[in-house]
């Protein structure tokens, strides 16, 4: 039996999970419209590949991954693209993001799916497949999964941790997934294991989910894997990646390092499931399991298409009349959905209908009494009350000294605060201010560098010009001096010559000079033409037939207009 470790702090809020686990996962019916945001994961925003009016099939790529850390986006069902436009995002700000609006045709027709045999392929090809299938971390952070599947070259991979803890109250989507689709989860874990080659694979599940533990253990036994399925004590936030790693392996990830530096990598169970679907069935991520619970008549888990508008999704659970809003995520870390037409996205694990009875309005914030409760429960051993003072005073340098960026915003401190201070809100505020300032600073540094470079260039150009002018002036002066000298010499020579001969010779000289000048001009024209012909345009080597036709058409036009002589006809030698 594996001996478990503990992390500091943590709280035990009421779990509220029983409501939504009594019924199995159901397929949500097709909504009337889908709004699929292109930016659903960390990293580059995918480029739209479709346009309004185009017909798409289920699983067809509608957004191409932009950069390595980015994941593709796919059409959740077959239908017609109505628009590629800004639509309200599932984000606390209520701002819009570029989304593809699809009107389903009801046929739910798949595009061609090509399963791959991940064992026979190079690891790069498997990672590429996951990127193309839009597989991202479904635990909530939505980091592209393929980006985490490259083993470090320097640190040997010790443990692969699979996160099925699901510690947030109300949420049961991973629980139901593990109960009902355990085998596919385990197969997905197998894909990760093959790519990372860890020494051990540990699957951590909170001990309030005995059915899920049993299901996964049975699946592991059936598939003959040696994964350890471990029930961990129920304590929020045991499902935080660093916390679960601590509990299962005893390793504490230092603030400046990542878990891979210690030879540990962590994935969510739902991510493993989607990875398996992508590899073995060629299915991209077009839907996810979402818990619909809270103040609704029929709480349960639904497999809903990404892009389903919130209004159509919550109708499935029949919200009670006193519902006054919807939270995305859990009550500890979630946020209020900004609008009823905001879509479900890859990060949406749970929708909670809230009501004044379920989440009573907090009494007003009181002054901090420095009781230290927040420091006791902080799983990262920070001092939230100190951070609070500095964030409140907008003393951002100090907040960084107190390691504000180690805060995972789990909400334990706000949960226990007897003065009901919204501590996490202060920390979020401070973090985003610091990020904004850093961005501004970088932009200013860049602008400064570019300005200095331009000034230097301008000065150099000026100096070069002045030098050139000076040279030209000197040359002119020298020429004038030489001419004057020559004229003087000629005059002297003429004076020396016999006066009788002068009349016969002088008219001949100007004629000669004129002829020489003409000859020089003709030679220069000839040279220029030869040069023009010798220099082939560089960008005309690999033209498509269409481009060649276009160029020929333009040339013909130019000839008609008389701008250019016909290229084939040899020019007549100029007189």
């Amino acid at each position: 039996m594996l001996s478990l470790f503990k992390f500091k702090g943590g709280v035990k809020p009421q779990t509220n999970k029983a409501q939504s686990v009594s019924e199995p996962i159901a397929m949500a019916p097709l909504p009337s419209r889908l709004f699929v945001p292109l930016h659903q994961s960390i990293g580059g925003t995918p480029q739209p590949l479709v346009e309004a009016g185009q017909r798409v099939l289920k699983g067809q790529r509608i957004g191409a991954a932009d950069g390595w850390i980015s994941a593709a986006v796919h059409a959740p069902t077959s239908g017609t693209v109505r628009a590629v436009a800004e639509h309200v995002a599932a984000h606390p700000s209520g701002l819009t993001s570029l989304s593809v609006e699809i009107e389903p045709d009801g046929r739910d027709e798949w595009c061609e799916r090509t399963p791959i045999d991940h064992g026979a392929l190079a690891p790069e090809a498997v990672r590429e497949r996951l990127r193309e299938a839009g597989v991202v971390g479904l635990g909530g952070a939505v980091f592209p999964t393929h980006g985490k599947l490259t083993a470090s070259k320097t640190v040997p991979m010790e443990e692969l941790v699979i996160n099925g803890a699901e510690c947030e109250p109300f949420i049961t989507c991973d629980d139901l997934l593990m109960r009902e689709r355990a085998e596919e989860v385990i197969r997905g874990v197998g894909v990760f294991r093959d790519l990372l080659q860890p020494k051990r694979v540990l699957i951590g599940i909170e001990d309030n989910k005995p059915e899920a533990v049993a299901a996964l253990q049975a699946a592991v036994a059936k598939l003959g894997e040696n994964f350890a399925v471990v029930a961990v004590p129920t304590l929020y936030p045991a499902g935080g990646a660093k916390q679960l790693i601590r509990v299962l392996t005893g390793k504490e990830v230092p603030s400046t390092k990542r878990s891979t530096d210690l030879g540990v990598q962590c994935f969510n169970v739902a991510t493993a499931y989607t990875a398996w679907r992508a590899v073995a069935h060629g299915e991209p991520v077009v839907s996810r399991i979402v818990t619909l619970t809270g103040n609704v008549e029929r709480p349960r888990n639904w497999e809903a298409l990404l892009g389903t508008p919130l209004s159509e999704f919550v109708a499935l659970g029949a919200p009670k009349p006193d519902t006054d809003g919807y939270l995305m995520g859990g009550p500890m870390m979630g946020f209020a959905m900004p609008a009823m037409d905001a879509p479900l996205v890859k990060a949406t694990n749970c929708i909670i209908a809230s009501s004044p009875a379920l989440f009573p309005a907090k009494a007003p914030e009181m002054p901090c009494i420095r009781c230290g409760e927040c420091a006791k429960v902080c799983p990262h051993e920070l001092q939230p009350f100190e951070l609070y003072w500095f964030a409140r005073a907008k003393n951002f340098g100090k907040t960084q000294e107190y390691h504000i960026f180690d805060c995972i915003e789990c909400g334990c401190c706000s949960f226990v605060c007897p003065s009901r201070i919204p501590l996490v809100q202060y920390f979020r505020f401070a973090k985003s201010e610091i990020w904004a300032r850093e961005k501004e600073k970088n932009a200013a540094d860049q602008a400064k560098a570019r300005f200095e470079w331009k000034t230097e260039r301008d000065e150099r150009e000026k100096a070069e010009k002045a030098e050139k002018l000076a040279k030209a002036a000197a040359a002119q002066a020298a020429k004038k001096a030489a001419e004057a000298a020559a004229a003087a010499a000629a005059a002297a020579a003429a004076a020396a010559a016999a006066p009788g001969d002068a009349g016969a010779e002088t008219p001949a000289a100007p004629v000669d000079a004129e002829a020489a000048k003409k000859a020089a001009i003709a030679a220069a024209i000839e040279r220029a033409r030869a040069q023009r012909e010798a220099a082939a345009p560089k960008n005309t080597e690999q033209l498509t037939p269409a481009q060649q036709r276009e160029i020929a058409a333009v040339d013909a036009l130019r000839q008609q207009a008389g701008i250019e002589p016909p290229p084939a006809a040899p020019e007549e030698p100029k007189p």
Partner: protein
Amino acid sequence: MLTAIAIMALGAVVLGAALGYASIKFRVEGDPLVEKIEAILPQTQCGQCGYPGCRPYAEAINKGEADINLCPPGGMEGVQRLAELLGREAKPLEAEEKPKAVAFIDEQTCIGCTLCIQACPVDAIVGAAKQMHTIIDDLCTGCELCVPPCPVECITMEPIGENLDNWKWKYPVIELKKVA
């Protein structure tokens, strides 16, 4: 008596040598205060302060020739930070504070005169003679220096609105409930 004088003299020579060495070894290049002032300035290089760039303005502030409230892009926050650094009184900004903006060239109207390219202090405009120009908006500092030279008035300043990339969590406020 003589020994005492000798010891004092020796001490003076040793300390003098040490100080002389230190003044060469740890010589400060330039004025560090100017650097600090410049770090606060937003580097838009717009010249709205009346100096040709942020560096000259920083030097003028350092010499006491210029006031600290002449930089509109830096805003009131910039004035406050300068006041803090220099121990001067923070004054209200001379000009109006504008929202951040980037220049935008209407490519239908642009005649390709290159005047704006020459005016841009940070090389954020690309184009060539008789080819239309465009702004690289990531590099544009919003200095507006390209606006006046344009002979066809095709450059406008587009304010940068709030979007998902630059959205910030707001400072928590206590909602005041109306008491009957």
